[in-house]
């Protein structure tokens, strides 16, 4: 700068996202109802979430650590967990690409029926999983609309891991689309135009300017789809075939162990699944923080 100081330099001791506390929410409580609402909240969270989860976490150890490890090292359990995780992973990866394409088409192009399709994106959220399950199963069974087309070519989808992958793709799509869509819709036109005037082609603008800005939301959508997929039950069991060691998912194993009155075994599988979900969300959190530190979050 020439001479005069730049008055707009932000105070380095105040982080960018700092928001001064609202005077009314400061030290004195102006508004009534704090104790009663906090009481109700804590009562619900305790009875509905905390105590039940405590029962889950406490249960696997009734035969000691060995009992837990026995379940954990059971090949059938490992197989089911791996199946749930990897099919969910594959579906989430596919959904990142498909979801991005769908979100792009819905926000960038005007075409008849756009609103309707936009509303339909949420169908997997709104459609009960059992309904989705029997629909997908009957579509892709050997005598179904799609299955009968594929059967002559020796392609089997229903009652194989491919069917599971397909169901999880259905379930996961809205997570990615709904994460990316608002970011894409609010992406400043001037930034794209700047890239254009600087000589970037459409493809260069998409990959170098827009995609990096979408990264945090893509990661969010991916993680949510993955976490949901690992625990998904209703839409999967009808199409999975549920063959031990082949197409038996982890949540189903819990149901089977419960039917055998093996509470500790069921809880063990449950605890591991809970751990996987929390790890995925923790990883998401860490990655998001990395993005924020890059200066791209603001």
């Amino acid at each position, binding site marked *: 700068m020439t001479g005069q100081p730049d008055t707009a330099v932000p105070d380095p001791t105040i982080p960018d996202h700092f928001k001064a506390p609202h005077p009314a929410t400061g030290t004195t409580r102006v508004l009534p109802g704090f104790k009663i609402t906090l009481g109700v909240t804590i009562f619900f969270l305790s009875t509905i979430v905390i105590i039940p989860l405590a029962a889950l976490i406490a249960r696997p150890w009734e035969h000691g650590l060995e009992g837990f490890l026995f379940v954990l090292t059971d090949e059938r359990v490992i197989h089911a967990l791996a199946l749930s995780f990897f099919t969910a992973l594959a579906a989430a990866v596919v959904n990142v690409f498909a979801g991005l394409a769908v979100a792009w088409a819905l926000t960038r192009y005007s075409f008849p029926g756009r609103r309707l399709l936009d509303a339909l994106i949420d169908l997997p959220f709104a459609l009960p999983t059992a309904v989705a399950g029997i629909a997908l199963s009957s579509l892709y069974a050997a005598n179904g609309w799609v299955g009968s087309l594929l059967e002559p070519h020796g392609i089997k989808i229903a009652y194989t891991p491919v069917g599971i992958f397909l169901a999880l793709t259905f379930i996961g799509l809205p997570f990615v689309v709904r994460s990316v869509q608002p970011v894409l819709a609010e992406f*400043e036109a*001037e*930034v794209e135009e700047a890239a*254009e*005037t600087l*000589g970037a082609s459409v493809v260069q603008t998409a990959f170098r300017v827009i995609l990096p800005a979408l990264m945090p939301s893509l990661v969010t959508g991916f993680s949510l789809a993955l976490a949901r997929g690992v625990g998904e039950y209703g839409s999967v069991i009808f199409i999975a075939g549920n063959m031990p060691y082949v197409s038996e998912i982890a949540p189903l194993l819990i149901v089977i162990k419960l039917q055998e009155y093996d509470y500790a075994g069921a809880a063990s599988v449950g605890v591991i699944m809970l751990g996987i979900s929390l790890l995925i969300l923790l990883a998401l959190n860490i990655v998001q923080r990395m993005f924020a530190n890059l200066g791209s979050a603001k």
Partner: protein
Amino acid sequence: MSLIIKNVNKTFTNFPALKDVTFEARSGEFIALLGPSGSGKTTLLRLLAGLDTPNAGEISFEGENYLKLNPRDRRVGMVFQSYALFRHMTVAQNIAFGLNVRPAKERPSKAEIKSTVERLLKLIQMDDLGKRYPSQLSGGQRQRVALARALAINPRILLLDEPFGALDALVRKDLRRWLKRIHHETGVTTIFVTHDQEEALDLADRVVVLKGGKVEQIGTPLEIHSQPSSAFVFDFLGSANKANGHIKDGIAHFDGFSAPVAGAANDGDYTLRFRPYEAHLSRTGAGIPVTVTAVLPAGSNLRLELKGTDGALFETQHSHGSEAQGFSVGDTLRLKPERVYAYA
């Protein structure tokens, strides 16, 4: 002439944004497009950048038809009002972007790009901040990065859209001086959009005043300032006092006194305009009878607010040492314009 804009028209769904705009810019000239919001100045800038296409008219640069070129082939350096920096890129990466996206055979080597970035960082006086992200910069710094990014592609024309609009007054003034220097050093033809007349007169070689999509006046800052071509330009450039009078043989006649008219005007009745600093106040003698309603400081001047007997409001400016210092609220005075402007 390097940049020629001829009979350009642009209509947005039934709303004409530009009507028959024509002007030319010499190579290296600094042109300000001045006008209120809605006057079409940003639209014109976007046409020059190729971000919109005109409905009719010609735009050419050094004999080349610009309308046939893509925005990315025009090599215009555009600085957006919102800066439009790439937030996931560092300052250096932002500046290098335009070079990095060139096709492989036209792209400078890595070392060349690096030295260009360093040179530009030095030019914008941010040598040490190349590794920062836009979110870590102040508004003024972001503005300078946006300019460096535009300069990096070695633009044929530099387009600036209200570049200082979002900054506070002190930073604005500082950047203005700095921009003048940059223009001097690079010598690139520059078109600059602003609604701030002071900024336009201060920076530009020539000013194009726009109103409702039409060119109202083109001229040097001095011409625009001393010979506003219309009532609109006169009012837009600063405060205007208005009084009714009659012109005969180039002299304006008021009730009991007269004043010279700037420029030529036909005989007849007019609403005559005069500047606050081109008026004389006295306790006695001829003039419009007024009462002082406020005495205020205005920088190096003293500003007086006055009220005529018919309720009309006036404003005058005087240097601190003048006799106006002796006036106070409630005084009854005579206001006599030194020079008036007449517009039909």
